[in-house]
């Protein structure tokens, strides 16, 4: 297998489901979604830790990590290509020092706002107006 080129820093994509967008928008999951692309450590409920690059976080805090160093309770280290963690099993997520929490949250909220209002009236004009002016 050829070595893959380094992945782009942030996928910067908002979930397509309206339901998930609304759930995420009204909770702190947006902070984690803003961390997509960063290398972080996730502490699990079972006292294990997983350190890797965050690929994707959804509204239910399910986390996908890549290139993971997984450390179990005993401290044994395992290298994993891809790891999916159920939202409920997350206890902590370490936020990198260079990340500004408020700024990340606001950026992510702005992205959701933009996507939500993309095709609605006013922000996006309609080709044929529904009512006579």
């Amino acid at each position: 297998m050829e070595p893959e080129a380094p992945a782009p820093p942030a996928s910067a994509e908002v979930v397509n489901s309206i339901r998930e967008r609304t759930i995420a928008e009204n909770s702190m999951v947006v902070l984690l979604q803003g961390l997509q692309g960063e290398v972080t450590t996730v502490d699990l409920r079972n006292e294990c830790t997983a350190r890797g690059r965050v690929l994707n976080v959804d509204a239910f805090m399910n986390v996908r990590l890549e290139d993971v160093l997984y450390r179990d309770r005993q401290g044994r280290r395992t290298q994993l290509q891809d790891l999916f963690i159920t939202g409920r099993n997350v206890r902590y997520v370490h936020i990198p020092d260079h990340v500004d929490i408020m700024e990340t949250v606001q950026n992510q909220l702005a992205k959701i706002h933009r996507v939500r209002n993309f095709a609605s009236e006013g922000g996006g004009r309609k080709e044929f107006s529904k009512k006579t002016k």
Partner: protein
Amino acid sequence: MRTEYYFRHGAGGNFSHDSLLRSCVAVSNMEERERVSETDRKETASNPELERDADPNVEEEGEDAETLDVCSEHFNPLRALYAPAAPPLPFPNIKCFNNVSDYESFLKGGRGRAKPENVEKKRRKAMKGVADPERIERLKKLMVNNPVAESEEGESSSSSQPRRRRKQKPLRNVLTRMPLCKGSPLGELYRCVQERIRVKVHIRTFKGLRGVCSGFVVAFDKFWNLAMVDVDETYREPLLGEAIYHEKALTVSRLFEKLRLQEDPGAAEVGEKQEKAGEPKETPEDRSDRPAESRGGGRTAEPGQSESAADKRDEGNVSQARRKYGKVHTRHINQLFVRGENVILINPQPL
């Protein structure tokens, strides 16, 4: 050219054209009337004007052209039918009917009648895949960053109103919901956020207390998910197996006591007395489901008990684990996100 023709033949040959006219077999009334009027005109013509000359001349000399011309007044259909060549039609692709009644029914709007709207529909269908330049222009005008100024004004005036209406609707997201909690325990937490009060967050394990995170809350939500900074975490990993039943439930005070004991084993007896005093202190924001908060009871052997129990179990474990097992740990984390599910309670630290 026509008039020239008429004038050229104006001099002679009158009689021959007249006879030709008369020799027509079936003549319509209109034709007769015309002939009559034409003879009248001939008689009354004193000052031959261009038009007057043209009229009789047309009848006499220009007959061929006009009688066979479908558009002209003097069209002679019978003559046209017997003519050697078909008369030239002004519209080559004209619709052909078999009889007059066909034409009548077509006019009344029979099946397949080309009404204007149908024609338009058919045309649009045929042009479906083709890019319509008019539509492209319309879409360009709708584009937001389009330099087309005049059309934008029209659009923006109509769309600014709905935009204003939309903005009136309140914006609701996680950040705006934080101050809304005033009057509830979360509102108290919001006060801690605003006033940068250091808080202690009790973290749970599957059964009981895991540890305490001391730090500043930057943001939170209704699930008690917290974004914290400058966190000092004091915790103990949960014991496995039998030890859970034997050990007294871990409390905050005991946790710190253990920590102290770890650091300084000599302070055992002094610590116990302090624990007794420290127990009754209960936090006002108690949303806890703190299990088995035992106050009092024999504590003399407690620290020793847990440690010995831990030691026994450690025999089979990896050396690294044995070193850390059952021990209280501290660590500092600059920025931490805590899932609300793991929070037992939050204790704003006294000023």
